[in-house]
């Protein structure tokens, strides 16, 4: 009826329309152009559960598993759900007090929030697991989750295999794109670390929908986007478990190292560093305790001396010195040097074991007799090679040879943190003596493997490989092949499959060296050491070092004509090379080549294994450590006793005799301790103070990787082989 203002109906309709357009624009903005909301929604509602695959297994050359996987259990807690837990009984089971329980809870809430399940007590022992399992109903919010842990059926190769451990924040920072999360385990050392990517496999992800309180509602999209875990791939190594075990046994109670390499492939047959540890100690519940103990141990069981220990090679260097001189053309195999017991051309006197004339009449003879004079002279001839005008250039050429032979360079073995040891740079000598103010005489003892030259056992073994192969080598490595090898793996392993030719000298050069080294085992320093049925070549070494008694070294390869194994053995502070290192090397070769040790030689194996050659300083350290531990135990026992007494005193005030016996304080306890300690026959009495101090000093020296002392006081001493 009223048409008055009717035009305004259009306006109203336009207002309606406008608002709807505004809403639609915002909807387009939210739903079509903003991807962040989708992401935010997924972060909100989708819970990714990681399914851990089994780690790959490491096999030896005969397909025996050096390590396997087994299940271990963690006690996991979601703090927010843990209300009503029977704290007392949980604490009793775990053997902790309620304060500790509270502390852990706070830590978990602080670190991982209260709604996420986090590990409360990891790697439970079987017994504890069983007890907890029965009582789980008392602990709401707590769960037992399984995880795969390593076991080592042969108890061998700890340093080689490495260990796995929970990743920490710094590890996560370093491997941002590795897909690791807090609580994951990763290889921390050894092969476990080098081949982490291969061994770890691919984690599966299961997606669940969770609600606003992180409660799981069900699988996301019926598991359409779930990925299943792909098990880690296995590694096939060149290690021979039995040889490895034997080598470890032989090096027991000694400090030292042994490396055996197959020169034909570069595959490492055995690698031992002693003192060793049982790899099973680093899995399971006692892991933390054991790890702490080992890291503090002054003999450093975690330290892989085979790739990190730097030792003066001593006489074991001589064959290499000869090869270099021959290749440079400064000598021929027939070159002889008239040695009468010492080399004195340089003012200093280098003594030689042999005085009879003609013991160094040719290279072969000089090698067999390990003539210091001969090799000093040969070294000088190489440095003073007229082709290179002066000593610096001559030395540079010589160093280049050394590096080619893998000395003073990292070989790039497939273990982490290999040490390149040292063939000194000219800068080192320039600094010590001034530019051009040093010559072949100044650095003379390099020729007999002393001076500033050091090598790791694996470098010595590799050097033996090159000599055994007459001029080529494969980079020493453990892993021959990887299960389902992929392109990445092939690219990585390519460096271990490539033949490195070092020099192309005529066969005669090496034949002379081989003959010389063979003579060592026939009538030379190693004539006592036999390998049944095998002709082998070897060189003993007795290296002077600043840390006490000479190191016992032995390098060898066998069989002589078609070498299949090259070995380097070092026993620290053990004296002559032929006494300890030699037999160990021989047994390793015998075991590998003959597959067994001759029955009549087994007792010898036992004798060597039992021989205790650990330096006295380190033993003292153990004794001290043990004393401290005992003292602590006694103190604790006394304290507990005192507490009990004081309690009984409160109850029984009249009994005054008893209160007399209560130790008043720690002072008294200490006195008692000192009384008790010497009487304890299990513990060796501590050394008198003066001696103790000196031994302590020694002790620290020994533990620091045996670096060569700057001082040359010991230089003039004889070097003997």
């Amino acid at each position, binding site marked *: 009826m009223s048409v008055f203002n009717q035009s305004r109906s259009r306006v109203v*309709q336009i207002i309606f329309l406008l608002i709807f357009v505004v809403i639609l624009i915002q*909807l387009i903005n939210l739903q079509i152009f903003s991807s962040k*909301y989708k992401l935010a*929604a997924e972060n909100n*509602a989708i819970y990714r559960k990681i399914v851990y695959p089994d780690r790959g297994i490491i096999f030896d050359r005969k397909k025996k598993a050096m390590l396997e996987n087994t299940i271990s259990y963690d006690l996991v807690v979601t703090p927010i759900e843990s209300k009503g837990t029977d704290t007392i009984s949980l604490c009793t089971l775990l053997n902790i007090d309620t304060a500790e329980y509270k502390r852990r809870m706070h830590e978990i809430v602080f670190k991982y929030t209260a709604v996420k399940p986090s590990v409360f007590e990891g790697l439970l022992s079987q017994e504890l697991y069983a007890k907890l399992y029965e009582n789980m109903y008392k602990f709401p919010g707590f769960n037992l989750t399984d995880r795969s842990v390593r076991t080592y059926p042969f108890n061998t190769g700890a340093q080689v295999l490495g260990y796995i451990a929970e990743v920490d924040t710094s590890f996560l920072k370093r491997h941002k794109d590795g897909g690791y999360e807090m609580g994951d385990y990763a290889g921390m050392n050894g092969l476990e670390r080098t081949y982490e990517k291969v061994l770890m496999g691919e984690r599966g992800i299961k997606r669940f929908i969770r609600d606003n309180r992180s409660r799981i509602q069900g699988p996301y999209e019926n598991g359409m986007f779930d990925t299943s875990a792909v098990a880690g791939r296995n590694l096939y190594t060149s290690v021979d478990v039995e040889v490895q075990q034997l080598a470890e046994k032989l090096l027991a109670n000694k400090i030292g190292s042994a490396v055996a390499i197959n020169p034909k492939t570069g595959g490492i047959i055995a690698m031992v560093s002693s003192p060793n540890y049982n790899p099973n100690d680093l899995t399971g519940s006692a892991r933390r305790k054991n790890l702490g103990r080992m890291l503090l141990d002054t003999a450093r069981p975690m330290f892989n001396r085979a790739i990190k220990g730097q030792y003066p090679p001593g006489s074991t260097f001589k064959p290499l010195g000869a090869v270099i001189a021959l290749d440079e053309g400064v000598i021929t195999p027939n070159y002889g040097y008239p040695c009468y017991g010492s080399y004195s051309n340089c003012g200093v006197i280098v003594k030689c074991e042999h005085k009879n004339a003609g013991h160094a009449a040719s290279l072969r003879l000089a090698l067999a007799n390990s003539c210091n004079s001969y090799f000093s002279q040969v070294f000088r001839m190489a440095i003073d090679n007229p082709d290179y005008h002066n000593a610096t250039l001559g030395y540079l050429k010589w160093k280049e040879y050394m590096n080619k032979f893998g000395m003073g360079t990292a070989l790039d073995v497939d273990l982490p943190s290999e040490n390149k040891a040292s063939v000194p740079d000219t800068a080192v000598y320039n600094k010590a003596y001034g530019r051009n103010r040093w010559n072949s005489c100044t650095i003379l003892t390099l020729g007999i493997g002393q001076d500033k030259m050091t090598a790791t056992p694996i470098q010595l073994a590799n050097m033996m490989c090159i000599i055994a192969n007459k001029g080529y080598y494969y980079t020493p490595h453990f892993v021959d092949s990887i299960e389902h090898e992929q392109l990445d793996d092939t690219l990585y392993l390519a460096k271990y499959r490539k033949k490195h030719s070092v020099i192309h000298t005529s066969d005669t050069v090496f034949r002379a060296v081989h003959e010389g080294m063979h003579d060592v085992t026939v009538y030379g320093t190693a004539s006592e050491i036999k390998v049944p049925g095998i002709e082998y070549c070897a060189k003993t070494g007795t290296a002077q070092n600043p840390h006490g008694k000479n190191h016992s070294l032995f390098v060898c390869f066998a069989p002589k004509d078609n070498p299949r194994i090259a070995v380097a053995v070092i026993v620290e502070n053990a004296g002559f090379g032929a006494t300890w290192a030699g037999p160990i090397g021989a047994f390793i070769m015998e075991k590998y080549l003959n597959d067994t040790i001759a029955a009549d030689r087994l007792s010898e194996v036992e004798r060597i294994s039992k021989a205790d050659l650990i330096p006295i300083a380190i033993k003292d350290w153990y004794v001290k450590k043990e004393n401290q531990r005992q003292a602590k135990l006694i103190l604790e026992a006394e304290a507990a006793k005192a507490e009990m007494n004081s309690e009984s005193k409160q109850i029984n005030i009249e009994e005054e005799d008893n209160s007399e016996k209560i130790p008043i304080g720690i002072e008294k306890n200490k006195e008692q301790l000192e009384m008790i300690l010497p009487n304890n026959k299990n513990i060796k009495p501590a050394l008198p103070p003066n001696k103790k101090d000196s031994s302590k000093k020694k002790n620290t020296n020994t533990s620091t990787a045996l670096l060569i002392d700057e001082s040359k006081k010991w230089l003039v001493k004889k070097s003997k082989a």
Partner: protein
Amino acid sequence: MSTRNSFVSKGVDWTIVTLYAILVGIGILCIFMVEYRSGTNWLQLFLGGKTNYSKQLFFAGFCTLIATFILLADSKLFTAFANLTYVFGILLMLATFVIGKDIKGSRSWISLGGGFNLQPAELCKIFAALALAKYMSMQNLDFTKKRSQLIAVAIVLLPAILSRFQHETGLALVYLSFFIAMYREGLPAEILIIGISFGALVVATLTVDPNTLAITLTLIAALLIYILRRQIKRNSKLLMMIVATWAICVTIQRFAVPYIFNNVFECYQSQRIYSAVGKDYDCSQNKHNKSEIAAGAKSSFKPDDYNVRQSKIAIGSGGFSGRGFLKGTQTRGKYVPEQHTDFIFTSLGEAFGFVGCTIFLLLYLFLLFRIVNIAERQRSTFSRVYAYSVASIIFFHITVNVCMTIGLFPIIGIALPLISYGGSSLLTFTVLIFILLRLDADRQMVLR
């Protein structure tokens, strides 16, 4: 439909009835989506009547009954009782101050027993609409007069003020929608323009730096004076007007708005408004908050935009075509608070995406346009004003509710018409719509 009694069905607009039914149906499905948990036997729960969707279905049945009664009633009844019901509604609202029941912090409910509660402010919308229609349709009314305009505004604002005192800001705001109906009847357009300009100025104050805004305003004023310099020469009043407007704008921007936010609004309200424009409000400036702190109450909490954030995430994650019915992760995870009532739109947005939302909003738009159409075909002013009131109320509810879920409007508790869970709300809209249908069916009669 044809089987219906011809007396009742005659003249009833079936388009609106169909739209009504569709929307209520969508509402129940949305509530079902929110409540649904995979793995539960929903049918059993449904029949058990313990769940919200079965309750809502029950409400819908009840509403159908009421709707039938309304359609059966005589349309003269509504004109006759319009003023009486309005007074009754106001009395009910006043009664809440005495016998009110506290639900979610607002004392605006009256307990009816049996677990049912009535919110008089909700019902008062109907009464206000009727009363306004009644007043406007008075034969001797000249709406061009200021006095009658003021009376009309008073009729509308009285329940709004009462609602505000009950801390039901959302409901209070709804009464503003009657201005659209009044505008249609001849309320000067200037009021709407000034109102919108004021809104724009407030938003600008919140978003733009105060000094920048002051300079901008001054520049605009200067520009205007420059452009209108000829007219100003002739008419000096114009200059005065421009200067006065400029002065008022700057005063509002510099003093009035901060004063209102710091002294009139509660801390949480200021925060919500600020968060709607994407800013943080510092509660330590708020007077209420200060007095609370002085009284030793809880200290100020962090700006809380959890609701909006989650709501936007849910809608945004729907994407173009949505995740599908019952597949929304945010809905299933109960991430959006109050999702079955005020934030019901999010479940729709997540499940059906942009396409679903557009179709849904078009349904609403169609409903509104249809009501406007119906309004324009009325012969009586009463029916027309009432129809516009209904359209305005529904429009306002939709706008505020949807804008709030997509982050364009501060969060106030306001239901999505016919969709949100809740008996009061559903009943109110049913009654509103079906009274309109009844009136429309009798449009040939002249009602006064």
